[in-house]
């Protein structure tokens, strides 16, 4: 019986290990490829004739995402105002509302939610646009004209993300604090002076720096992942042509969002 049992165990374990191993290798391979791709693109940011494209992309990723960031920031601040007000009332600490809202937004919710909103709005667009350029041979056309496609398509988007993410995060934080003021002060009657005093006194430079560091990390992740997914959509095994572009866009958004949350934990554990 013993040898038979051994065979059964090995039959069950080997495919499992093989599956996990192959998945891990694929994952590591992808991370490595994204890292190399990002490095190449990052170096090319500083080449000549990039400024015009970077400004265009700052407009697309940054300026055109500001409305959605404003709306989400406003309502996030308003919801936080409501939730925290009724929680703090239980402990008789309504005066700390400004501190609670500002710290939550600046340290955590601002960078994360802003990044997720930009991913949804601009990241998906980046992946789809580059994907379409790829499947219609426009990327090959760039190469054939002596233009480095990574330099022309990817580098400006990465630079624009690095510029836009911290700015939009700051914008989100500011609007969120105003949203908290609307519900906490104007709706629920907390003292306005106390609210802003607490905001000012509780926020330190370290908190603000932490938020910005996170937003920079998220910018790198989102731009790198979205550009990578679009650029290599023709190499996907799960679809070709338009379908590949669709799959690449979905992957870009999902991977970016998951990576944002994972990176948020990692960065927070380092800066706390």
């Amino acid at each position, binding site marked *: 019986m013993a040898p038979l049992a051994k065979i059964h165990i090995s039959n069950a374990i080997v495919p499992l290990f093989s599956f996990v191993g192959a998945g891990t290798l694929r994952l590591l391979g992808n991370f490595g490829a994204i890292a190399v791709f990002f490095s190449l693109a990052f170096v090319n940011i500083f080449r000549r004739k990039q400024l015009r494209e970077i400004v265009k992309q700052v407009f697309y990723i940054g300026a055109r995402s500001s409305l959605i960031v404003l709306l989400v920031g406003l309502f996030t601040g308003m919801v936080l105002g409501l939730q925290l007000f009724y929680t703090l009332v239980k402990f008789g600490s309504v005066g700390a509302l400004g501190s609670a809202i500002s710290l939550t937004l600046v340290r955590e919710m601002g960078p994360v939610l802003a990044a997720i909103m930009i991913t949804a709005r601009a990241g998906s667009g980046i992946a789809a646009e580059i994907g379409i350029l790829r499947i219609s*041979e426009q990327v090959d056309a760039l190469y054939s004209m002596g233009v480095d496609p990574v330099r022309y398509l990817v580098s400006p988007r990465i630079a624009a993300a690095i510029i836009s993410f911290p700015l939009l995060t700051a914008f989100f934080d500011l609007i969120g604090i105003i949203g908290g003021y609307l519900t906490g002060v104007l709706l629920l009657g907390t003292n306005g002076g106390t609210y802003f005093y607490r905001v000012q006194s509780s926020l330190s430079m370290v908190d603000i720096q932490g938020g910005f560091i996170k937003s920079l990390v998220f910018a790198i992740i989102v731009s790198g992942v979205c550009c990578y997914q679009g650029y290599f959509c023709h190499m996907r095994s799960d679809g070709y042509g338009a379908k590949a572009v669709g799959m690449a866009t979905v992957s870009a958004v999902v991977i970016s969002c998951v990576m944002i949350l994972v990176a948020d934990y990692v960065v927070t554990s380092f800066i706390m």
Partner: protein
Amino acid sequence: MATPLIEFDNVTKRFGEKTVLDKINLKIYENQITTIIGKSGTGKSVLLKHIIGLIKQDEGTILFQGKPVDTMKKSEWKACRSQIAFLFQNNALLDSMTVFDNVAFPLRQTTSLSRDEIKKRVLQRIEDLELTEAIHKFPSELSGGMQKRVALARALVTDPKIVLFDEPTTGQDPIRKNMILSMITHYRRKFGFTAVMISHDIPDVFFISDRIIILWEGAVGFEGTYEEAVKKKLPLIDEFLRSLEGFEDELTSLLSREAFRMHYSAMLGGSSTAAAVSAALFSIRLNLVNEALGSQAALEVLRALGKYTNKRFRPIGGFSARHSRDEILTIFPHTSIDEARQLVAGFAQELKCEALDRVQGIAIARIGKETSFDIHIRAGVTSVSSTDAINQIMDKARVDQEIIVTHRCGSGGNEQ
């Protein structure tokens, strides 16, 4: 022979299990037009993409001016690549840019020319390719033919040394097809570039090609001139060439060369040896007309000549075909040489009065009313003996060629 500009040495390319190129050996020489033909899926586009480095070979070596590309430094390869332009099969225009921006793109990105200089060059190319009315349009607003011309303008705007054309005439009408081919020959002469082209526009592509390469089952089935391909009579190649060459020449509506050859053989086989047969060789200096009046006018002249040859001689049993880009040979069965001369004289009169007038409008648009240009149509008449090969008939007729029609374009119309 000189060192090839580009050489494939045992190049193999596989996509998964499928071997697309199997130990390909071929040479492309400087200042020549090399045409690659082959059935769909034989790796023609893949081969072309290897030249510019869009696809890397799995085995073998690609040499550029005798030097293996794989051993070149990055800067060296970049310098080589900057001399090459590529015209994609599906055009690959940047669809978020206008026609002007598409054509200007390579200049803006890869040169340090001033804005004015870029504008000047771009407008010149746009005018050359008759795209002026589409200059501010986006690719999606253009017809397939216009998109092709925009792609061609973009490929030529940097004055490249080597131009790779991946089916440049696909989706074009016969006139435009020939215009594009004329333009390729014209620019090749003007700028001295080397052209490598994938095309199936027979017979015109053979008239302009210096060498042809036939890809067959992933390998090079033939490499050489068209005449050599026809002479060799390799069964597979012969069958393939025949399948490409239709019964009729698309531009002139004359017989294809193959159909002409069959008619000629049948005529010799069916007629008694005593029956007189004559031939006339008509020709136009297409290059001169092209230079002076543009390719559209040149092709209109050729088309008019072809159509009139058919109209005038077919009812009396004559049959004609284009045997080079600008030469039409007509065989008159049961016709003595004197009768043939009379037929040609009558034909010249009608051609001058009716057909060539259409060219006038195009010519005036190009050169204006003040200047003039004379289009000469030549003809040589000869008798044909039953042992004469088609080439021999042409040689004999060429000796006796003289001008039969002079059409003055610009300031006057018909002359002589």
